[in-house]
């Protein structure tokens, strides 16, 4: 073939093209429509929710007369007014829409009001007179453990004989790592618009990652069949897991009010209410007992993970399962037991958050490895490498999945070299020896993250493709857009399949009426699954078009080829739309559905054994920090990342996920501190008190590289790899870099006591605690002089 024609024949925006986000132009011009921007019909009402001020109490009296009589108020609803089920629990039915007699967290919804303006609604909601009989709240992990309050039964994974191995190991360490939760802080808060339809049906526009869940829940709440509810979302202003199960409550409230008033109802939370009312990343305490040899090789380990689930189960079951599945991170644990406690507390029910328990599981083992290294006086990196999974042996996880795609040995080596880890570590030690106030630290940590929903049945996706007679394409699928670029990725896949320029592919809002029974956009697999489903639909259309060409022009199927906006049929070439028109004239269907289910996975949920993941995503990061030992403040001058995104559909989008995920993870482990008072009221419910990273907190020297040789060894669409969640856990290196810097205060002889998030305050306390311990030890070692 003539090479000069290559460019002319390459489609715009196919697979591997690093094109801008499909909505980028609308984002920068202000035209992108978010749920709250949808023009509302005349007569639309605005809703507000009245919430509990107590973490645990019985409602002894609820006087809503002042609410109902407030200016502009049209309707007020309580539990008694719910025609269907008063429940929004996504898995278990243990979470009410409106509290019925008892409140179980401060911020729990008690009633809702619809008024003519949003101001009127919010003001009216504050006028309720609620009397409570206070009950003792159980707020912390320790208190819930002591009281044995669980939302779900505890689980254990065991392999080998950890007890005996612990007893026989040359060294043994015990301890606990505590880590806090995290608020999603999507820039766009929770919002829903419900519009009543004929026959009592309901149309819902919801900022949700899980339209099907909203659809089912609204149906249950209104007592309608699922087919009477339609949910649509074009885009979210961020989700991160916080709009997976959490959106259902707000959509349900809007739907209930719309149902009773017969008018459209918009419900848009303000930031404070959003932070108070919605679930967060689970707080964890991980207790360990580890035995190891002189090289730091783990011989046996027992891990007990206790998580604060809040007042209901929500998604805590699968979140904690995933924490257990990542308690090994990248390391072979031959004799191991992992126990998980899912604790019930009088706090908001915690939920999905990018990583879904994985980050907490990984933090535990990374901390343990770091402790082992400090105990033995070794570089933690050496101990990490010592314990890595092997390629062909030592490659079975505690849950009995064989790892077939491990690339970490090479990846870590490459990063160690490209980041100049060894030389920089030596320089840091030198610097610390002579720097009394500023101390530097460095850490390299790896990530191995399992891709797939652990609940096997969720690993399915659907797509719907129409081709019109002008050759343009309408694309719909189950994925929802929250900024992660799934719409762009999937459109690129369809463009590639059909060999059409991407501007011919119309991306459309996710809608339960087009693709039904969908899974949430979650578990990082949205592009994997929906891309494959859309490709399936495109191939169906292509097959039909080929049949038309074969019949009409008497050629072999192999003589029909699609190339940029054209079809080659034998020795003739015709525009794509011409063949489409011929197909239409021949009465051939130009609409197709596509479907995908992830192969190979299986999993025994009772025994927690099997292959819950189709494959693993890998990466590693080196973070360097400098801390001020007088104030606890710190900054990260440099971070190096090497991440495996497989062969990405769109490398620019993948890169954005790595950078953004890392910074979000850094926020979790450094500055983002959730604080509840003794009565269980969240004190950090606005960006003024809850600090997510700003640009000034990010490393000025940030070197992010996607692994060039990246290839998914499994047959994932175009050999790409999921990249939504895994990079978040690269930030575990920031925490351990801080720990390394603190350790330098004691000349690396003692291991710091630090918990996450490592706020400046905690860093300062860790420095002082370490100094105190050091002083105590020096006193002990000195012969005591007796006068």
């Amino acid at each position: 073939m003539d090479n000069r024609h290559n460019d002319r024949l390459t489609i715009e925006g196919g697979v591997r093209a690093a094109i801008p986000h499909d909505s980028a132009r609308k984002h920068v011009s202000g035209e992108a429509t978010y749920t709250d921007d949808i023009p509302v019909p005349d007569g639309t009402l605005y809703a507000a929710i009245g919430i509990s001020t107590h973490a645990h109490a019985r409602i002894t009296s609820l006087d809503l007369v002042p609410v109902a009589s407030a200016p502009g108020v049209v309707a007020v609803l309580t539990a008694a007014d719910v025609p269907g089920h008063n429940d929004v629990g996504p898995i278990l039915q243990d979470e009410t829409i409106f509290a019925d007699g008892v409140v179980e967290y401060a911020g729990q919804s008690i009633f809702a009001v619809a008024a003519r303006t949003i101001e009127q609604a919010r003001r009216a909601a504050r006028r309720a007179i609620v009397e409570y009989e206070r009950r003792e709240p159980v707020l912390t992990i320790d208190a819930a453990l002591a009281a044995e309050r669980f939302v779900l039964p505890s689980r254990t994974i065991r392999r080998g004989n950890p007890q005996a191995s612990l007893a026989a190991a040359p060294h043994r360490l015990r301890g606990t790592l505590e880590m806090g939760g995290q608020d999603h802080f999507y820039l766009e808060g929770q919002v829903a618009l419900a519009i009543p339809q004929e026959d009592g049906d309901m149309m819902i526009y919801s900022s949700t990652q899980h339209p099907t869940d909203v659809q089912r829940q609204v149906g249950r709440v209104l007592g309608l069949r699922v087919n009477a509810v339609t949910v649509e979302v074009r885009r979210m202003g961020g989700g991160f897991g916080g709009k997976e199960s959490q959106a259902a409550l707000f959509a349900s409230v809007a739907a209930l009010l719309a149902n009773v008033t017969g008018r459209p109802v918009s419900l848009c939370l303000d930031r404070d209410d959003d932070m108070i009312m919605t679930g967060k990343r689970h707080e964890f305490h991980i207790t360990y007992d580890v035995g190891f040899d002189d090289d730091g090789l783990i011989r046996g380990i027992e891990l007990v993970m206790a998580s604060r689930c809040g007042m209901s189960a929500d998604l805590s079951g699968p979140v904690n399962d995933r924490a257990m599945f990542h308690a090994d991170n990248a390391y072979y644990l031959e004799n191991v037991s992992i126990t998980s406690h899912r604790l019930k507390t009088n706090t908001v029910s915690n939920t999905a958050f990018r990583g879904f328990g994985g980050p907490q599981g990984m933090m535990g083992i990374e901390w343990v490895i770091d402790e082992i290294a400090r105990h033995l006086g070794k570089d933690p990196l050496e101990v990490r490498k010592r314990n890595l999974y092997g390629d062909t042996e030592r490659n079975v996880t505690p849950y009995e999945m064989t790892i077939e795609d491990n690339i970490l040995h090479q990846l870590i080596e490459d990063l160690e070299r490209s980041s100049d880890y060894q030389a920089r570590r030596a320089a840091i030690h030198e610097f610390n020896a002579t720097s009394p106030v500023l101390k530097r630290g460095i850490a390299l940590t790896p990530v191995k993250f399992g891709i797939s929903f652990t609940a096997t049945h969720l690993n399915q996706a659907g797509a719907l493709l129409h081709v019109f007679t002008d050759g343009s394409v309408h694309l719909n699928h189950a994925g929802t857009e929250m900024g992660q670029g799934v719409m762009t990725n999937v459109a690129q896949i369809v463009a590639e399949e059909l060999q059409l320029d991407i501007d011919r592919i119309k991306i459309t809002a996710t809608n339960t009426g087009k693709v039904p029974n969908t899974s949430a956009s979650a578990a990082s697999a949205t592009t994997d699954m929906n891309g494959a489903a859309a490709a399936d639909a495109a191939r169906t259309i292509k097959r039909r078009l080929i049949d038309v060409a074969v019949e009409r022009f008497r050629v072999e199927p192999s003589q029909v080829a699609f190339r940029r906006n054209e079809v080659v049929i034998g020795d003739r070439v015709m525009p794509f739309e011409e063949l489409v028109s011929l197909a239409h004239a021949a009465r051939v269907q130009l609409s197709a559905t596509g479907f995908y289910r992830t192969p190979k996975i299986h999993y025994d949920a009772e025994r927690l054994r099997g292959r819950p993941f189709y494959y693993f995503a890998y990466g590693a990061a080196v973070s360097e920090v400098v801390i001020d030992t007088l104030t606890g403040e710190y900054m990260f001058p440099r971070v190096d990342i090497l991440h495996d995104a497989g062969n990405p559909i769109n490398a620019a989008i993948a890169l954005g996920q790595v950078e953004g995920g890392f910074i979000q993870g850094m926020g979790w482990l450094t500055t983002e501190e959730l604080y509840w008072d003794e009565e269980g009221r969240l004190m950090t419910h606005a960006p003024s008190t809850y600090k997510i990273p700003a640009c000034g907190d990010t490393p000025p020297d940030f070197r992010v590289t996607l692994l060039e040789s990246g290839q998914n060894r499994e047959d994932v669409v175009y050999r790409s790899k999921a990249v939504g969640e895994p990079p978040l856990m690269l930030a575990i290196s920031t925490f351990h870099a801080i720990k390394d810097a603190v350790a330098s205060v004691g000349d690396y002889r003692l291991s710091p006591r630090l918990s996450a998030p490592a706020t400046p305050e905690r860093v300062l306390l860790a420095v002082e605690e370490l100094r105190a311990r050091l002083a105590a030890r020096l006193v002990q070692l000195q012969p005591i002089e007796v006068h």
Partner: protein
Amino acid sequence: MSQQIPISVNVNGTLYERAVEPRLLLSDFLRHELELTGTHVGCEHGVCGACTVLLDGDAVRSCLLFAVQVDGHGLVTVEGLAPDASSDRLHPLQEAFREAHGLQCGFCTPGFLMTLVAFLEENPHPSEREIREVISGHLCRCTGYQSIVEATKIAARRSA
């Protein structure tokens, strides 16, 4: 019913005359009264910067102002950034954000753009440090900011 106060304000070159409640936030005025929904509200606390608009050329947070305070003044919102609404052309900063992936969910984008437009006007050749500093007054939960810094550098270079 509280009293309504008449205001007249020039937004993106169009003069609007409206009667508003004294406590109506400028952000709500823009979004609900004028239906200029490109101005986003992320916190209503003056912290996130998503609601930033230009008031007589200065970047201000519209969630911290009342509509009555801008009576007689001129505003530019993200919808007014492009040089010519009838054409497809974008402001160089918009173009740079688009092509350099300075956004993911895009919710924070209008705010960043408005602050940076005013900033680059005053300081057309900023150092990376200065860019990082001015951006630090805005929150983005998606990008990790690297691509935003990059896009700003590109825009500055182009207009140089």
